[in-house]
């Protein structure tokens, strides 16, 4: 093999994130010392980000099937059938490390990447969500990260032209050194026109489409799987820049050539661009791939094979086109002003062959690089379950009214308007429910169908008890979809954890996946796509385990979707579900009592499903006028949110069995708050009895205040002011 590449030294191998045993494996596999380019290719394909080597055996345990699932995990995105010949294509993916290093571009290219995953499959994106976890607000870096990440997500999505309709923002010191940016994209395709990445046919032309290749993000893939140290700064120059304008052109051009029937297989270039996409196409199609790098459109001069194979320049695609349609496809791409080049072909050899300047720079077995890459069964320890905390043992440091005021103005519970106002959430004219409710609701085409979309996880529960935390994340997504009247169909997950080489972290990952799997099974709510982000730790300090769940549900008639705002004076407020007053790991315990302890609320999956079906039936039967799921902050925070979203207050009494602070702020699961017209209350209670669902009457809507029995009444307007105040004040540097 002729080449002027550097010699392979142990240092070089280590720099490529390959462990000695992995290098041994490479030597055995190819029977010789790899070339520099080959080493780069192995490091890209065998790192955690692309190979899922630490998580794969556990991911396999997730339920991924249902009659409505068209494509589960394994492709660029998951696909489900929603009838009328339509399919929903969706996935969530993380861009954590790049966003920490360059918040704007890191977040922007994260959005760009997940949008490509969706339109690569032939879907037109109709919505995006984003789940963000930042460090302590007081940490010197946090404000800049929030500003940059939010601007980057908006900057890309707004220009591309997709509404960003939902997401989450949380703050915790455990994210000080590693913020999390999880982006989800959802698209609509014709169910019989889905496009996949497996190449087929020998001697087929491989076509490169989109923007030119530069030295962007070289080692981005390896960086994304590397634990941060003090040298994080040096990793900076690898950050790639997003071009939403080119991505919009790429979308239109791809959908156009797909409609014209030009495409056999297609794969976007994401992490480790050309390498990952070419290997995936070949390996999945049981074919070899030969690439001629001299034909790759380059932005910079003198790029080496190594650089071209590892470049993460954005807005690029690889396709196998029907030979006879080549000219037609090329004309379409030229019309959109995008690059188009035949850069290789499929072969019968199952080898990945890379040529550059007349020399063979890489010649590797494609299956072992791709779908047969190494997988690990890493050792893990299951932590012991924490003690449950008895509500009675918590002495309230302040009155219920004072606590409510404090909670609605706290970083985690306050309004996120400052964030979602920077996202265009109305473009395309189909946003039925905008950010701020339980789940976003987006009409499909002109309706009547609509999708409900949500993203959820409670990391502090996951850390205290990974299994219950995993269950709870899925349960909360299920509730949020239910509360707007949707039937939950499927989910995508984005598993963010620390270093899997530490058994306790591996234990968190395994526990959460088991919890997620149990809940998915109990709800017929399969996982159809997802992403794993590991090594989220700095100097040995890991983030909170954060398995973000992106849920998708279906609403048959968008005009009947339910909202959380009180609708009228004098309506009955009912609580659906059982309340013991569970304060362990609650926000009340953390933010009011300053204690982060105890077992998180257990999730009774059967009750979740029963109560969910009951609430959905009430909504479909037109028996409720408002519905809201109960989660962080508990019952009183939820009722305050319903009041603040409306122009009515509420008058409320607590039952005597449970201590008031525990009743109002406990975070017991499987609960909803609904409002019902007085004349329908009896009917609702009867239905509850039949369905064996506990329902308690709490009081009635109306007035200007939220008046809790025996507490100082709180003016709705004042609460709203506190609710809206914190984030803008924080971002302006005032707090």
């Amino acid at each position: 093999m002729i080449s002027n590449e550097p010699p392979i030294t142990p240092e070089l191998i280590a720099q490529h994130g390959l462990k000695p045993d992995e290098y041994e494996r490479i030597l055995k596999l190819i029977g010789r010392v790899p070339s520099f380019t080959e080493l780069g290719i192995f490091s890209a394909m065998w790192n955690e980000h692309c190979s899922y080597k630490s998580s794969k055996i556990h991911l396999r345990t997730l339920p991924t099937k249902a009659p409505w699932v068209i494509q589960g995990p394994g492709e660029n995105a998951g696909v489900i059938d929603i009838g009328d010949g339509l399919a929903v294509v969706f996935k969530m993916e993380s861009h954590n490390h790049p966003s920490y290093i360059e918040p704007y571009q890191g977040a922007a290219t994260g959005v760009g990447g997940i949008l490509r995953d969706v339109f690569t499959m032939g879907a037109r994106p109709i919505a995006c969500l984003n789940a963000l976890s930042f460090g302590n607000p007081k940490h010197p870096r946090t404000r800049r990260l929030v500003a940059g990440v939010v601007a980057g997500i908006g900057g890309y999505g707004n220009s591309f032209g997709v509404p960003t309709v939902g997401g989450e923002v949380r703050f915790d010191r455990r994210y000080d050194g590693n913020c999390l940016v999880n982006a989800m994209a959802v698209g609509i395709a014709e169910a019989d026109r889905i496009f996949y990445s497996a190449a087929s046919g020998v001697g087929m032309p491989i076509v490169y489409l989109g923007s030119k290749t530069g030295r962007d993000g070289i080692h981005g893939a390896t960086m994304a799987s590397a634990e941060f140290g003090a040298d994080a700064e040096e990793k900076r120059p690898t950050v790639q820049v997003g071009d939403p304008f080119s991505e919009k052109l790429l979308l239109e051009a791809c959908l156009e050539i797909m409609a014209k029937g030009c495409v056999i297989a297609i794969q976007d270039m994401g992490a480790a661009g050309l390498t990952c996409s070419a290997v995936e196409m070949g390996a999945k199609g049981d074919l070899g791939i030969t690439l001629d790098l001299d034909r790759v459109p380059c932005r910079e001069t003198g790029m080496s094979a190594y650089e071209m194979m590892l470049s993460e320049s954005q807005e690029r695609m690889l396709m196998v086109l029907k030979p006879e349609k080549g000219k037609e496809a090329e004309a379409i791409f030229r019309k959109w002003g995008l690059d188009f080049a035949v850069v290789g072909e499929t072969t019968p050899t199952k080898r990945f062959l890379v040529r550059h300047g007349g020399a063979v720079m890489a010649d590797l077995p494609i299956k072992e690089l791709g779908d047969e890459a190494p997988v690990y069964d890493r050792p893990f320890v299951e932590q012991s379950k924490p003690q449950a905390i008895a509500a009675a043992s918590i002495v309230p440091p302040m009155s219920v009214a004072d606590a409510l005021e404090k909670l609605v103005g706290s970083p985690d519970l306050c309004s996120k308007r400052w964030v979602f106002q920077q996202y265009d959430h109305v473009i395309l004219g189909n946003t039925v429910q905008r950010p701020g409710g339980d789940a976003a609701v987006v009409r499909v085409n002109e309706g009547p169908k609509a999708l409900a979309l949500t993203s959820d996880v409670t990391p502090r529960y996951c850390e205290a008890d990974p299994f219950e935390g995993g269950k709870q994340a899925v349960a909360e997504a299920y509730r949020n979809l239910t509360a707007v009247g949707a039937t939950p169909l499927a989910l995508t997950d984005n598993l963010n954890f620390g270093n899997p080489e530490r058994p306790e972290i591996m234990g968190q990952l395994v526990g959460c996946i088991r919890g997620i799997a149990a809940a998915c099974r109990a709800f017929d709510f399969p996982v159809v796509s997802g992403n794993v982000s590991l090594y989220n730790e700095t100097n040995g300090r890991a983030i909170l385990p954060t398995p973000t769940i992106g849920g998708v549900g279906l609403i048959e008639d968008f005009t009947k979707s339910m909202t959380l705002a009180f609708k009228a004076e004098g309506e009955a407020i009912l609580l659906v579900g059982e309340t013991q007053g569970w304060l362990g790991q609650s926000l009340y315990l953390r933010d009011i009592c300053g204690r982060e302890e105890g077992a998180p609320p257990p999730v009774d999956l059967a009750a979740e499903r029963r109560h969910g079906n009951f609430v959905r039936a009430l909504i479909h039967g037109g028996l409720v006028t408002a519905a809201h799921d109960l989660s962080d902050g508990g019952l009183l925070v939820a009722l305050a949110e319903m009041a603040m979203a409306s122009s009515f207050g509420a008058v409320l009494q607590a039952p005597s069995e449970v201590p008031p602070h525990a009743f109002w702020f406990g975070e017991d699961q499987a609960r909803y708050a609904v409002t019902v017209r007085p004349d329908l209350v009896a009917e609702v209670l009867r239905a509850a009895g039949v369905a064996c669902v506990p329902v308690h009457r709490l009081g009635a809507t109306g007035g200007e205040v939220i008046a809790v029995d025996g507490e100082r009444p709180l003016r709705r307007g004042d609460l709203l002011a506190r609710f809206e105040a914190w984030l803008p004040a924080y971002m302006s540097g005032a707090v």
Partner: protein
Amino acid sequence: MKARVTVTLKSGILDPQGKAIEGALKSLGFAGIASVRQGKVFDIEIEGADRVGAEAALRNAAEKLLANTVIENYRIEVAG
């Protein structure tokens, strides 16, 4: 004192703006344009006459705020 801070993209960093402008110039019939890269200038009025202090302050400002040193370089000129 008048000062100017000029911020330009590091070489190799993608410049979508420059690319689009390049295309527009070509389609407007400007021949012979090989490439366009876009940058920013900040014209800053500074009180007092302490050149050295001003330069130090501006370097600091460029590092902290005016330039994104991850992807940009900057140059400082203080006019007498």
